[in-house]
């Protein structure tokens, strides 16, 4: 069993104990996340509202490796008193990872409905694409193209203005 390190910041109301939510990844790992951080995810928010948050919530679409990071992201974004600039810098470090991992984050953010994480990761991918030619995009993302020669010609004609 592994769990994420508890956040170091104080909860909004110090008199109440921090409510922890338990999450279980697709590969059986369990993680604990503060309720405030869990609310970053609309999916989790709905489950908490419906009082399903008693037992570990199973997340069959997210592996332990990714879920750990998502918990870290949500906890950081739920921390009070972090200024915009530091948060942006932290975010930049957070997505400074392999392409495949960024895609995994996108899938998790999509599934768990975490708008901040989705926006951040989609920005990263957009930055990877921006300014590249179609060939460069294929190389960068290791994409195979299966346009027939006629399709290739047609799509180029349709979009030739984008190359001027």
């Amino acid at each position, binding site marked *: 069993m592994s769990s994420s390190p508890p956040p170091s910041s104080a909860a909004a109301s110090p008199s109440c104990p921090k409510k922890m939510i338990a999450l279980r990844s697709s590969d059986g790992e369990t993680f604990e996340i503060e309720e405030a951080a869990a609310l970053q995810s609309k999916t989790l928010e709905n489950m908490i509202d419906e009082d399903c948050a008693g037992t570990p919530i199973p997340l069959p679409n997210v592996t332990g490796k990714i879920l750990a990071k998502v918990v870290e992201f949500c906890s950081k974004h739920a921390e009070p008193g972090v200024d915009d600039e530091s948060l942006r810098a932290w975010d930049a470090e957070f997505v400074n990872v392999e*392409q*495949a991992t960024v*895609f*995994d984050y*996108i*899938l998790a*953010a*999509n599934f768990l409905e975490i708008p901040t994480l*989705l*926006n951040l*990761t*989609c*920005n990263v*991918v*957009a930055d990877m*694409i*921006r*300014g*590249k*030619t*179609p060939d460069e*995009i*294929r190389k960068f*993302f*290791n*994409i*195979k*193209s*299966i*346009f027939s020669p006629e*399709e*290739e010609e047609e*799509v*180029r004609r*349709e*979009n030739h*203005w*984008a*190359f*001027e």
Partner: protein
Amino acid sequence: MELESVGDLALNLILTKLGPENVGRVACVNRKLRLSADEEALWSRFCSEELHLSAPLDPRGDPLPSFKAAYKKWREDFRMYPWPLVKRVKRCWDRLQGWLLTNFPDAAATLREGASEADIQELESVLRVKLPLPTRILYRFHDGQDFDESDFTENTPGGSLGIIGGYSFYGYVVNVNLLPLSKVIMETNHVVQHLGFSSRSNYIVVAASSTSGEKLFFLNCRDGQLHVGTRNLPFDGEMMPCVPKSLISSVHDRNADLQQDAMLLWLEEHGRRLQSGMIKLREDGGVRSICLFPEEPPLCSTAITNGVRIRSSAVFVPEHSDLQNEYLFAYSIRMSLIPEGCMANEMPCNFCQLYRRHWIIRANDAVVAHVNGDGAIGKSLFMRVALI
């Protein structure tokens, strides 16, 4: 783990962030991405954001089957110009045309369709000039104004539908309209001959008052400045600039970051003044026209005394001015009663008659003239509070 597998929602978000050019390139990557890149929702958004189109229309206003097709048509039709400049010119015309359609539809109806590249090239070859980039694009959207017989009536011998508008005083009427390229050629040739400009002159006539031949606007095609002729124009070609020179830049450089010439700046400012109500339509003897006497502070002053509101503003008259000796201004004074009526001998009253007037005219705090007289040039103005 592949790009396409991030899911449609995420792909759509990524493409939205990328903007039209990059999305066009993504469409060329493979079939799946082409499908995502061709989504109408994306192109509807791009058409709305960049061109303020809420329907898929081409530059002539004709409908096309999709927003993607519409965006493509716009980019193709204007591919010879920097796209940000095209968007800016469109915004300028949208604002002017929008105001006209709402407030002065008769004038809006006189705006011609855009000129073609061939029309522009013909003018350039006949007049031996090279139009500044912003002006070319302005003409691509609308080739000046067209009038027909019915626009010239007994009351408006010179027409009143000029979109630049004008002023009138003591029977002198000015109403400025934008010339179509065909008239630009005619007027420029005519003026150049009569004024003896050298045939290699860079000036073309772009706007003129239809009511009197006295007010002419010239565009200098080399440096992009706009000039208006003074009263010495017929004698020594004297004219004065209309736009601060420091604002004009890179009028012939397609690769510069920012191109703006005097014609664009002038029309943008005019659109702003119309939209803000700084200048408005006025009616005179049943005829409506755009009047250049300012109507809002700071260029229009208002004072209310005993329930009588007086508003005054002035307009510069360059075509009667002389750069060496004197600048002529015309003033407009308007009087009305406030809705509550006026006070006379501490009794409320809902009518009031102008009996005498005394103007003290100052320039920079020095008194330059007094004007004393009855009523208003022989007429006594009678003001009545409107009874609702």
